[in-house]
């Protein structure tokens, strides 16, 4: 499906979505609260079938966090990028790990690196950081490494 | 002619003339014990080096070549290293069993040395049920492995020991059955009798195809019984780190190591005795002149040559094949080896009764 067709189709699904076509792929910005239902539609709609979540990450914009989901369909080969802003002090978003299994590990990574709380995640525990890690989330912009190997 | 039996005989005569019969027997026992222990050490040194060289050449490497000329003293260096290493005992281990297990493994090896004929008329103990004795004593080995695995208080060790138990108990069957085929053919359990019955040709040639089949089964079964790859599930270093000897270090580990190699030597010696004629030179039926030429090669060389050939075969397996999985290992025994060896035994019995063998 072309970007234009995707845009029309997605507008039908979610009227509040806003689009940005400057990048390589169609960028869709949505509200975090709409995400679980919207994700389900993206995955199961017959004309969309976004069955492959190839990248899940988070961006720290200092004022807020942005969750970024890169989706592709292995049947139609179209790609979209879904973005959802979450609050930086109490970040919360619904998990999609039951829709795309790969999200389970990626969300755990985002959880410990950015502190985003994924609601209803089956196993939201530290994955990479050592057990009992306390303190700020390392990939946030305001994180200062006490040893600071980066700046030397 | 210079031979082991002559030397042994003259020593015995001298002892009998010099001391009273009781003391002479004690002295003989001490000498035999020392001989067995030194044979152990020598075998360990040779086999470890042999394994390393064989593996190296198969893996397009050079192998040990630093200590001594072409690396032949490498195992001395290794032994020295293991001797001076600390022998750790884990905190939760059953100390008595933990320390007993490697010793038991070694004692089993020593016991098994007794009935083996190393050369013409040269045997520590001419037992009339020699073959039965060997298969009975060799199954004690599994106890030492279970002991080591259980006493280590380590999950890997325990799993290795349990695997080893299942494995050795099942493979004992087909090893025993393939030994039986030869016993049926020659009608004796006595090792010298078996060897002399091969004076006109080895059983592997005389016994038609069934003898060859039982030879193959015997080799497979003893490879499994001695925990050698591809049946090294008790150790399985990629799954269980080191299996039953995970917690052993220093000399205790070395004893297990030594016991493994000595066991390989013993089962190969038994295999050589049963199927390849032991120290019996290569004789062909009625070709008297050919047989005479063969007799000029000393019997001990024949024995060690055959044994080392079988050892090489087992090493060849190890460095070629991947390891089996535990259920496949038991499948192989119960679905393939055991039925085949039973039918094979039946065939051999028919051959023996009808006298079809050469």
């Amino acid at each position, binding site marked *: 499906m072309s970007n234009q067709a995707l845009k029309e189709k997605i507008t039908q699904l979610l009227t509040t979505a806003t689009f940005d076509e*400057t*990048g*390589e*792929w169609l*960028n869709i910005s949505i509200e975090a609260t709409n995400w679980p239902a919207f994700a389900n539609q993206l995955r199961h709609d017959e004309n969309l079938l976004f*069955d*492959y*979540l*190839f*990248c899940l*990450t988070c*961006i720290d914009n200092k004022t807020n966090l942005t969750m970024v989901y*890169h989706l592709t369909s*292995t049947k139609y080969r179209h790609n979209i*990028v879904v973005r959802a802003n979450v609050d930086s002090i109490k970040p919360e978003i619904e998990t999609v790990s039951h829709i*795309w*299994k*790969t999200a*389970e*590990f*990626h969300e755990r*990574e985002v959880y410990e690196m950015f502190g985003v709380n994924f609601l209803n995640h089956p196993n939201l*525990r530290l*994955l*990479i*950081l*050592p*057990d009992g890690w306390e303190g700020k989330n*390392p*990939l946030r912009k305001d*994180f200062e490494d006490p040893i600071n190997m*980066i*700046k030397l | 002619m210079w031979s082991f039996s002559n030397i042994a005989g003259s020593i015995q005569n001298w002892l009998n003339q010099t001391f009273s019969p009781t003391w002479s027997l004690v002295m003989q026992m001490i000498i035999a014990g020392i001989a067995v222990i030194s044979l152990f050490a020598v075998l360990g040194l040779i086999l470890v080096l042999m394994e390393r060289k064989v*593996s190296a050449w*198969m*893996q*397009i*490497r050079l192998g040990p070549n630093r200590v001594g000329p072409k690396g032949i003293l490498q195992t001395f260096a290794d032994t020295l290293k293991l001797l001076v290493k600390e022998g750790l005992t884990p905190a939760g281990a059953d100390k008595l069993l933990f320390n007993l297990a490697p010793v038991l493994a070694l004692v089993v090896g020593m016991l098994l040395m007794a009935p083996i004929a190393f050369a013409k008329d040269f045997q520590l103990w001419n037992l009339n049920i020699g073959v039965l004795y060997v298969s009975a004593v060799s199954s004690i080995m599994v106890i030492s492995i279970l002991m080591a695995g259980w006493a280590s208080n380590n*999950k*890997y060790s325990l*799993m290795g020991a349990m*695997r080893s138990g299942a494995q050795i108990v099942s493979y004992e069957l087909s090893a025993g059955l393939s030994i039986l085929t030869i016993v049926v053919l020659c009608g004796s359990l006595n090792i010298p009798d078996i060897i002399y019955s091969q004076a006109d040709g080895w059983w592997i040639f005389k016994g038609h195809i069934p003898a060859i089949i039982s030879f193959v089964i015997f080799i497979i079964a003893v490879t499994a019984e001695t925990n050698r*790859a*591809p049946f*090294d599930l008790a150790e*399985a*270093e*990629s*799954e269980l*780190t080191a299996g039953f000897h995970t917690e052993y270090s220093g000399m205790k580990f070395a004893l297990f190591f030594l016991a493994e190699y000595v066991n390989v030597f013993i089962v190969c010696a038994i295999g050589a005795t049963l199927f390849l004629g032991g120290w019996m030179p290569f004789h062909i039926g009625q070709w008297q002149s050919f047989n005479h030429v063969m007799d000029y090669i000393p019997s001990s060389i024949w024995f060690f040559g055959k044994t080392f050939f079988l050892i090489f075969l087992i090493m060849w397996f190890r*460095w*070629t*094949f*991947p*390891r*089996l*999985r*535990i*259920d*496949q290992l038991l499948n192989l025994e119960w679905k393939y080896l055991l039925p085949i060896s039973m039918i094979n035994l039946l065939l051999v019995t028919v051959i023996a009764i009808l006298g079809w063998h050469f």
Partner: protein
Amino acid sequence: MFEEIGTTTEGDLIINVGPQHPATHGVLHLVITLNGETIKKLEPHLGYIHRSIEKMCESLTYRQFIYVTSRMDYLSAHINNQACALVVEKGLQIEVPDRAKVIRVLMAELTRIASHELWWGAMAMDIGAFTPFFHAFRERETINDIMEETCGARLTMNYMVPGGVMQELHPNFQKKVKEFIKLFRLKVHEYEELLTGNIIFKNRMKDVGVLSKEDAISYGCTGPVGRGSGVSCDIRKLYPYDAYDKVQFDEVIETAGDSLARYMVRIKELHQSISIIEQLIDNIPEGDYQAKTKAVLKLPKGEFYQRVETARGEFGVYIVSEGGTTPHRIKFRSPGFSNLSALDKMARGSKLGDLVAMMGTLDLVIPDIDR
């Protein structure tokens, strides 16, 4: 830690495979709940060599950050570097000379062969065959020597720069690669004799760690793992980059989804890589090996994503730029991370001995997972 795993009942055995264990190449830590020999549950613990490369890259310029990615998946260092160079080129709209494109593809395919070689040897060692390891390293050494001559290093080459490659090819490169390919065809046959046909090996691999097509897509498994399950996921074919649109090759797809299928995909990929190299080695176009670029690279404000096919699967670089000389956020989508997440699904219900076969065919490189 162990209580949290849940579902453990009386009689279950929990063992830790790793962080130091002969079957985990690197410091992967798996907590396995066993019932006898059967795996009930498996839980990976990561992070033993996490270096936060993503954070490091935020303070490095667009020329500098490329070298760091060699340290992630060190076996396909070249392809990682290529992805980073490509994403910078995408952002700056640099036209790469044809010669550089072909050189990049040649190097990437050599890297892929070298990586598969190491995988072959290490996997064989996992399932108990030692000899293949050394045989595989013999050919890998040859590739490393070729690399060393042109790039100056054997493993972490850092040969890619935005706009092309760092240095001209060594004069001996073509001759040596041709010699190598000729020899390698024979050696692959030897590999098949030694391992592929072996009945023990086949039994160890067949129907072990089956991953269905739906699961493979859902878990995001790519590369040989995905293709072994019948997912068409070769980025080289789907979204061609550099000179991949100019070469003919087949995407190897097996449908069984078990360890043997994943093994066969990799072995067949060796042949495909050889064929790609053969097509290009005599047709390296003349011209510059590097496009003219500014001394200081500044990516325009925006987001850039580049996916490439490494030896382990789809590798993605996601850069968010604020218009400065360093990226605002950089994310590496590593294939190993997603492939590892499927291990629990595969392993449940199989024997402990199967686990090493599965991990072997997943071809896990731990720095790639931890980053």
